[in-house]
């Protein structure tokens, strides 16, 4: 049985990140896309903590703390936006929202 | 936060406040105007404080502010002021104030945006003259293009789109070469800070001719030196009055300032090497600009071409590479800003009433507007270089410099003699302009209804005249401001160039 090294955590993190990315790219539901983004953030967090442990540096954890805070703020605003969009368009289908079209 | 940062970014406060106001109602339009005027007035006052804090005997940078910006590239937020830039700062503050006051009634639509752009313009210009980090300088340099692009493009004349795009791309194209030169030096030297690069200029001495040209072309287009002047008549004629004032008053000076600030100390040998060639172009510019001014049918175009002629003098002074020449050049830059700025303003006053700038529409205006005409006469004379007024002081110091310039070879008098013909030609085209507008019979019925200058316009003109007379009669204080810095610059060039005796 091999020891659990940092490599394992990197691998796990990448897989979760890739799944999150797929979620963003494939799903139509804005809320699910949002959740996928959260998952990508989490995969990054996981890596932070793993490296923090690996290198013996507490700063990694501090950073995760901040990421979580920012994520919380982001979710709050993001969901509020989704609610607003839903009010005007009666839909949260991401394919129907293209206000930024050039 | 240092005073230089304050003087640079103070207009941002005005921008923010204006943004908060609603556009539309008359009342808030006035509020916008007053806000913009107030902001620029405060900036002007702060620039006077800078002047008060300025130590005249010191050659190097003063009131330095230094902070890391992008440390991994050696890019800093680095502001500083010395004798080469102090006058430019004052000029910028003054011209911005005046041009905002001059737009009071001339701009009738999209007032909010207009004043925001004017204030942004001021930030950019201040930054250009204060930045001591090449990268920071470049950022400010390019930044100035944006507000001017919109000022011409939105509030300009009939061909404004053409003129603004031409202005933008022309100057942009020149700056790209400068950007390459800056990047090369910055990456090679590991820093973008100008003083450090000057100290370590030996590192790129082998390619300095190329680097010199990279900078020179960018600045030459801005100045503009013949034959890069083709954008100027378009931009000047199409810009709104205040735009022309700023353009002639400050933007063109950014080019000449660039030569003094960067080309001379960074590449002294190349400067000496190219001095005769640039002097020849400058002299061609003097004569050519004057000749081309003469047959123009549009007042503003005439003044625009006259800038080519005047800036030729400035370039000649710079590449005399001696104390008199460079100081004369800096002062002449200021003088040109005042005289030509005032001329554009006067043209604007006429244009506001008659909506034409064609000479054929005018004549005998003196009879209808006596006070205005006297003021115009004084400004014309100042532009012509009448001794006792500001133009002469700069011009004479420049010619004095070029007569004794070692950089122009053993016969500098040939250059000086040709340059001095500009004195005659200036009289020819300026008097012709004055005669066509103000003299002769008042036979166009539309001109009979012209009202004379009002209090606001008179106040602006008196502000111009104050400096026109002051510099003309007692310029020694102005020279004292730049003397030490220029002396240091010249000795700096001299020590680098062993070939010079």
């Amino acid at each position, binding site marked *: *049985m091999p*020891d*659990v*090294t*940092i*490599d*394992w*955590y*990197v*691998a*796990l993190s*990448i*897989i*979760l990140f*890739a*799944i999150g*990315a*797929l*979620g963003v*790219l*494939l*799903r*139509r*539901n804005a*809320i699910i896309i949002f*959740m*996928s983004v*959260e998952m990508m953030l*989490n995969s990054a*967090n*996981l890596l932070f*903590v*793993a490296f*923090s*442990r690996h290198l*013996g*540096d*507490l*700063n990694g*954890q*501090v950073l995760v*703390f*901040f990421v*979580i*805070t*920012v*994520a*919380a*703020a982001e*979710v*709050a*605003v993001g*969901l*509020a936006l*989704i*609610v*607003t969009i839903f009010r005007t368009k009666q839909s*949260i*289908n991401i*394919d129907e929202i293209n206000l930024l079209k050039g | 936060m240092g005073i230089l940062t304050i003087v640079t970014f103070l207009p941002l406060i005005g921008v923010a406040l204006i943004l908060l106001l609603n556009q539309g109602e008359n009342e808030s339009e006035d509020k916008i105007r007053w806000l913009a005027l107030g902001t620029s007035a405060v900036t002007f006052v702060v620039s006077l404080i800078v002047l008060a804090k300025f130590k005249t005997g010191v050659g190097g940078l003063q009131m330095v502010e230094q902070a890391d910006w992008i440390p991994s590239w050696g890019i800093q937020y680095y502001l500083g002021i010395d004798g080469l830039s102090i006058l430019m700062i004052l000029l910028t503050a003054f011209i911005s104030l005046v041009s905002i006051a001059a737009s009071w009634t001339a701009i009738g639509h999209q007032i909010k945006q207009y004043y925001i752009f004017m204030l942004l313009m001021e930030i950019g210009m201040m930054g250009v003259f204060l930045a001591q980090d090449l990268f920071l300088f470049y950022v400010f340099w390019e930044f100035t293009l944006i507000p001017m692009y919109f000022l011409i493009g939105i509030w300009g004349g009939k061909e404004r789109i053409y003129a603004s795009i031409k202005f933008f791309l022309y100057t942009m194209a020149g700056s790209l070469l400068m950007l390459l030169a800056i990047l090369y030096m910055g990456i090679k030297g590991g820093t973008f800070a100008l003083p450090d690069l000057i100290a370590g200029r030996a590192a790129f001495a082998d390619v300095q001719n190329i680097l010199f040209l990279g900078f020179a072309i960018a600045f030459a287009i801005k100045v503009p030196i013949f034959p890069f002047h083709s954008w100027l008549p378009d931009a000047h004629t199409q810009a709104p009055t205040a735009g022309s004032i700023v353009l002639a008053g400050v933007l063109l000076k950014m080019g000449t300032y660039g030569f003094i600030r960067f080309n001379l100390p960074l590449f002294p040998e190349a400067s000496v090497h190219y001095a005769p060639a640039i002097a020849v172009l400058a002299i061609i510019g003097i004569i050519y600009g004057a000749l081309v001014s003469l047959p123009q049918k549009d007042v503003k175009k005439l003044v625009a071409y006259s800038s080519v002629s005047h800036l030729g003098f400035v370039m000649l002074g710079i590449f005399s590479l001696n104390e008199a020449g460079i100081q004369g050049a800096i002062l002449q830059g200021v003088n040109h800003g005042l005289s030509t700025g005032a001329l554009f303003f006067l043209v604007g006053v006429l244009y506001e009433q008659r909506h034409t700038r064609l000479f054929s529409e005018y004549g005998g205006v003196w009879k209808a507007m006596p006070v205005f005409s006297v003021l115009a006469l004084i400004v014309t004379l100042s532009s012509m270089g009448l001794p006792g007024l500001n133009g002469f002081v700069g011009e004479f110091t420049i010619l004095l410099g070029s007569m004794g310039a070692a950089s122009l070879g053993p016969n500098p008098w040939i250059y000086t003699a040709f340059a001095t013909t500009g004195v005659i030609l200036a009289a020819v085209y300026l008097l012709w302009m004055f005669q066509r507008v103000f003299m002769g019979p008042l036979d166009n019925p539309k001109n009979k209804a012209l009202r004379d200058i009002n209090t606001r316009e008179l106040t602006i003109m008196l502000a111009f005249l104050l400096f026109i007379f002051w510099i003309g009669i007692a310029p020694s204080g102005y020279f004292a401001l730049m003397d030490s810095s220029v002396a240091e610059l010249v000795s700096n060039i001299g020590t680098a160039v062993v070939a010079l005796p």
Partner: protein
Amino acid sequence: MGNPIVFFILAAIAIAAAMGMLTSRNAVHSALFLVLNFATIAVLYIVLNAPFIGMVQITVYAGAIMVLFLFVIMLLGADKLGGVVGEDKWQRYLAGFLAVALVVVFGIVLAQGGGVDTGTATAIDSSPAALGMRLFEGYVFPFEVTGVLLLTSMIGVVVLGRKKRGKDA
């Protein structure tokens, strides 16, 4: 860095939960899968000697944020909008390819063992107290800024959520 068996079990649950979130047709299910995923990761944090972060993960993410998600999903009745992108199939393929490519790239690197230093982990004091000290010694200003950020987003949410005067009402 933990018992391999524990790690594998947790990793498997996390990935499974993630896949579940990705594939569920019902948004509520997706959210619940995500909660599971977050909880698993929280456990991993604790394994990694970061108990404070693990707890925060549970309370903030799995608790607060996900509740918010569920709340919105139910509020909007948007739980049935499932499925994946319809028309542009190339997007789906490209996305899949990219995701796989990402994993493969890292896989290659990890297989070569050249990615990161695989030395032994260093043990440090990472108790909540130590973390708190670090936070207030070196990160006071960012900490304050974070507070402002939260406040700002709160105001933003209030503004966004408010009904437009004279429009809807």
